[in-house]
């Protein structure tokens, strides 16, 4: 086997080709929405909604229903529920997420534990199963991905305004509640799109780490979103490639690569700050 054969090996398989397309979509989507997640300090929400999807997956699995339908309904309902509880019950968003996601996750585990059907697939939902991306799954990834892209494309400005200054935005006539709910639902759909690639347990990292890396390098919004997107795609596509060559789990490899990039940006921005300080003290 030549070096070229080795390097191109992952692309010979249909399932890997599909996985790479999915990785591209997931990388771009998660990191774009991640910009808002990081700026609104909603890191917890990715974790919460991902766990909530488990209730829908469990019900769909036990009833033999469609995985995508089950996961979407459970996650979107939880997302809207979080918004509702937050507004009505006067509890912090953190608390609303904490209450609802554990409840949905517990429901999933409860149903699975009482089932007499084999639950071997459980692990593939928790940790992702890239081998399982069927042509149908890829179509669903592309369709839901397109919906998310349209929502962000349409609402990026009101999302930015309400992230920065929700009170003044509302006074100026921005429909804050609608924008908030649209963001939560879009995050929910993005998580579902990402589940097969990285799994429930790790998906939150993709919503946070690339945007956090980008925030180290820029103090402007649009550059931050573009950099975040670049980091997200690099992590997902590169991580998937590395996982094939290293015979490792795709989700874990992707998240570790994203984390590596985060520490690289951290070190480089700290070095740059030091240089600026030194230059300033010299000029004095």
């Amino acid at each position: 086997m030549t070096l070229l054969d080795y390097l191109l090996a992952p692309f010979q398989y249909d399932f890997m080709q599909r996985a790479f397309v999915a990785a591209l979509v997931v990388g771009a989507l998660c990191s774009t929405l991640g910009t808002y997640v990081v700026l609104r300090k909603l890191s917890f929400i990715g974790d919460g909604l991902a766990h909530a999807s488990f209730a829908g997956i469990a019900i769909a699995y036990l009833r033999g229903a469609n995985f995508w339908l089950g996961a979407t309904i459970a996650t979107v309902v939880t997302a809207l529920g979080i918004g509702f509880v937050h507004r009505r019950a006067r509890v912090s968003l953190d608390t609303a997420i904490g209450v609802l996601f554990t409840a949905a996750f517990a429901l999933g585990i409860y149903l699975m534990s009482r089932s007499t059907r084999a639950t071997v697939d459980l692990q593939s939902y928790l940790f992702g199963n890239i081998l399982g991306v069927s042509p149908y799954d890829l179509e669903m990834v592309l369709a839901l991905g397109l919906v998310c892209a349209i929502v962000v494309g349409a609402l990026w400005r009101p999302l930015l305004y309400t992230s920065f200054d929700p009170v003044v935005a509302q006074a100026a006539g921005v429909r804050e509640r609608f924008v908030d709910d649209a963001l939560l639902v879009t995050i929910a759909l993005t998580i579902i799109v990402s589940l097969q690639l990285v799994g429930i347990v790790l998906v939150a990292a993709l919503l946070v780490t690339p945007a956090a890396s980008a925030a180290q390098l820029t103090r402007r919004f649009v550059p931050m979103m573009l950099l975040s997107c670049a980091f997200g795609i690099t992590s997902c596509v590169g991580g998937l490639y590395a996982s094939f060559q290293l015979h490792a789990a795709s989700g874990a490899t992707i998240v570790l690569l994203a984390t590596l990039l985060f520490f690289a940006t951290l070190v480089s921005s700290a070095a740059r700050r030091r240089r600026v300080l030194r230059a300033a003290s010299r000029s004095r």
Partner: protein
Amino acid sequence: MQTGNAIEVRGLRVQYDRVTALDGVDFDLPPGTALGIVGPNGSGKSTLLKAVAGLVLPSAGTVRVFGKAPRSLTPGTIGYVPQIEDVDWNFPVSVRDVVAMGRYPRLWPFQPFSAHDRAAVTRAIDALDLGPLADRHISELSGGQQQRTFVARALAQEPSLLLLDEPTTGVDAATEDALLPLIRGLVAGGLPVLMTTHDLDRAPEWFDRLLVLDHRVLADGKPADVLASGAYAGIREHTHTHGHLR
């Protein structure tokens, strides 16, 4: 825009849990008028502005802005500058980015920034002398510069009604001196302005009408008349003993 009052408030009552912030407040604001609101700390001045902006809902009574409930107005109608901007100063935006947000409520999804939008942003930046600071990150501004940035955002919005919550409290004299002629110019152009303040001495320069508030309206008239009437006298003592903050 219609010819009637910009604001009509009738029997307004606002209740926060067990605290009554406003009770039985009535007033009108015609176009081209600057109405100042004075009153002691905790007298409900900020709440009154929030009720007009649709940020708090009345427990009783009505608030009409151009004949409608504040929340059903066309986006971009109300420009609001709160007293304390409780924003994340590390948020990745420059002065120009913040001012440009003023245009956002007026834009449809996918609608690109037009030449008019860009011109409104530049005009607002120039009006508040922020030109040299336009590309600075918001964390690199002084208190007065921050306040001017948020006023510029409200102006870039080209609002039909401007609400200012103590824009001159805690800012440098230069900022106040820049704001006064600017606001007076806008009022002369027909814009209705509702503004809270602690500065009674300069009230006649700022306002066409002055309203003394202490959960309800104690006086409402020409600034000189209201100040001469003594309606504010007890209040002035109050603010002096309790300080000028908030």
